[in-house]
C-alpha cells in the first residue's frame, strides 16, 4: 500500500513538468505584454523595457522555461508581477475560500444526493422517482452562471434574505454553495440511484429476501454499503471537478478564491501566478484523485487486495 502511494506521488512529477510546459507554451503565444499590463497605461517605454529585462521576458522561450524549471526544482516558483508577493503566498491565501466552497458544495451534494438517490431506487418508477430524476436532469443542465444570477435575483434582491457577495459568513456562503452544488447533487443522486438498483438485482440480495428478512433490513444492512462504493468514486471525482468549476461561481459572487485569482492572472498576464496556480491546482487535483482511490480501496476490500 505504502509503495503504491509513493509510486503515485512520484508519478506526479512528470505530470507537473508536462503541465508547466503546456502552460508556459500557452502563455508564450498569448498576445499581450505583461510589462504593459503590470505597469499600467501611464508607463513610459523605458520603464516597460526595464521591466522586461528584469523579468527575463526578452529571453528565448527555452531559456525562460529552463530557468523556470530550474528555480521551481529549488522550490522557487517566482513572484506575482502584480503584487510582488511570492506566488505560493498568493495562491495559499486564495485556496481556503475555494476549498470551503467546494467542501460545502460537496456536503450539500452528499446530504441531498444520497438520500434522494436511495429513495428513488427503492421506489423505482414512483412519482417521487420521476420527479427526482427530472429535477436531477434539470440540475445537470442548468448553466452555473445562470443559476447563480437567478438565485441572487430571488434571494438577495427580491427576498433580501441572503447577501449577494462576499464569503465571510455562513449566510454569504449559502448561495454560492448551492450554485456550485447543483450539478453535483444531480450527479450523486443519479449515481446513487443506479448503483442501488444494480445492487438490488444481485444474488445475495435475492438470497436475503428469500430468507424472509425484512425489506428495510435488506436495504440498510445488505444493499446500501455496497451501493455506496461507486458513489464514493463519483463524489471524489466531483470534488476535483468542483475545484475547477468554482471559477464561474467565484466570479459571480465575488469570492476571493483560486478560480477567480487564475482568471484575473490570465487576464492581467501575470505569468508566474498563472504558472504557479495551475501547478498547485494540478497537484491538488491529483492528490484528490489519489485519495479517492485510497478511500475506494478502503471501502472495498476486493480492490485493496490488488494494491498489495
Amino acid at each position, binding site marked *: 500500500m505504502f509503495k503504491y502511494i509513493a509510486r503515485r506521488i512520484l508519478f506526479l512529477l512528470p505530470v507537473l513538468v508536462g503541465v508547466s510546459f*503546456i502552460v508556459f507554451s*500557452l502563455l508564450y503565444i498569448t*498576445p499581450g505584454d505583461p510589462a504593459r499590463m503590470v505597469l499600467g497605461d501611464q508607463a513610459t517605454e523605458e520603464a516597460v523595457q526595464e521591466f522586461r529585462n528584469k523579468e527575463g521576458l526578452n529571453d528565448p522561450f527555452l531559456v525562460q522555461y529552463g530557468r523556470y524549471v530550474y528555480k521551481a526544482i529549488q522550490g522557487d516558483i517566482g513572484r506575482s508581477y502584480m503584487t510582488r508577493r511570492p506566488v505560493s503566498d498568493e495562491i495559499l491565501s486564495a485556496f481556503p475560500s475555494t476549498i470551503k466552497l467546494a467542501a460545502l458544495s460537496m456536503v450539500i451534494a452528499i446530504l441531498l444526493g444520497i438520500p434522494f438517490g436511495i429513495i428513488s431506487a427503492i421506489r423505482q418508477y414512483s412519482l417521487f422517482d420521476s420527479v427526482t430524476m427530472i429535477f436531477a*436532469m434539470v440540475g445537470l443542465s442548468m448553466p452555473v452562471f*445562470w443559476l447563480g*444570477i437567478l438565485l441572487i435575483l430571488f434571494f438577495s434582491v427580491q427576498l433580501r434574505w441572503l447577501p449577494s457577495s462576499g464569503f465571510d459568513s455562513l449566510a454569504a456562503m449559502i448561495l454560492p454553495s448551492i450554485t456550485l452544488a447543483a450539478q453535483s447533487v444531480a450527479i450523486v443522486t443519479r449515481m446513487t440511484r443506479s448503483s442501488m438498483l444494480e445492487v438490488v438485482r444481485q444474488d445475495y440480495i435475492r438470497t436475503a429476501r428469500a430468507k424472509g428478512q425484512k425489506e428495510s433490513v435488506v436495504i440498510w444492512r445488505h444493499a446500501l454499503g455496497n451501493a455506496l462504493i461507486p458513489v464514493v468514486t463519483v463524489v471524489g471525482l466531483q470534488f476535483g471537478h468542483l475545484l475547477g468549476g468554482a*471559477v*464561474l461561481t467565484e466570479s459571480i459572487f465575488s469570492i476571493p478564491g483560486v478560480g477567480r485569482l487564475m482568471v484575473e492572472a490570465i487576464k492581467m498576464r501575470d505569468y508566474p501566478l498563472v504558472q504557479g496556480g495551475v501547478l498547485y491546482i494540478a497537484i491538488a*487535483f491529483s492528490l484528490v484523485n489519489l485519495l479517492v482511490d485510497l478511500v475506494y480501496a478502503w471501502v472495498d476490500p476486493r480492490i485493496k487486495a490488488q494494491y498489495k
Partner: protein
Amino acid sequence: MNEHTEKNIGQSQHGLKEIFKRLSRAPLAMIGLAIVVVLVFTAVFAGFIAPYGYAEQDLMAAFEEPSGAHLFGTDEFGRDIFSRIIYGSRISLQVGFIAVGIAVFAGGFLGAIAGYYGGKADNLIMRAMDVLLSIPSILLAIAIAASLGPGLFNLMIAVGISSTPNYARIVRGSVLSIRNQEFVEAAKAVGSSDLRIILKHIIPNCLAPIIVQATLGVAIAILTAAGLSFIGLGIQPPIPEWGAMLSGGREYIRDYAYMTVFPGLAIMITILALNFLGDGLRDALDPKLKR
C-alpha cells in the same frame, strides 16, 4: 460513466434499427431527440424563422417587454431577443458539434494508436492525456481561449482540446478490449495493414461508447462555451451567442429580467435535451439492460 461504456463491445451487431427501437421505448430520450431535431432545424432555417436580423438595431425600441411584436422583448439596442436566440442556436450547435468533432477526432486518433500499438506509444500518449486531465478543463479552456484570442473558431478549438483526453481514454479502452479478439487476429493473419485494421475493424467497434460520450460532450461543450463568453473570452459581438447574451443582460437584470431569462432557458433546454438523448442512447446501447 466511462466504466459503463467501455464494457460495451461489438455494438454493431445490434444494428441501428434495434437501437432505435429501444431508444423509442424511452420517452425522455425521444423528447430529447425531438428537441435536438427542432434545434437543428431552427439553426438551419434561422433566416426564415427569425422575424428580425440578429444585429438589427432600433434604438427607439430598446428595452421593450415581451409582446406580440417582440416575443421575447428587445435588448438595449432594441434588437429582437427572440431572433437573436434563434440565430444563437446556430452558434451553440456549431460550437457544440465542431468542438466535440475536434475532440473525437483528435482523441479517437490518439486513443486508437495508444491502444493498438501499446508499449511506448501508449505510455507517451496516455501520459500526455494525464497531463491535460490534471488541469481542470474550464481552466484549460480559459487559458487556450486567452492565448488564441476571442472568436468562434478559436472557441471551438479551446473547448475541443480541453475535452480531447476523455475520448482518447474511451477509445483506448475499447481498442484494448478488442485488439486481441478473433476477428482482429483473423484480419492480421490475412495480412491487412494496421491502418486498415484500425479503420475497418477497431473504430466501428468502439463507436457506441463514443456516440454516447459525444452526445453528452456536445452538451458540455455548449456549456463551456457559454461559460467562456460569460467571462468575456467568447465570441465577437454582434454574434448572438447565448452565454454572451446572458452575460450582457446581467447588468439589466433588476429592471429587465427577461433579457437573461430567455437565453438561460435556451441553454438549459438544449442541454437538457442532449442529456436526455445521451442517457437514452446509453441505455439503448447497453447490452446489460437486455435482461
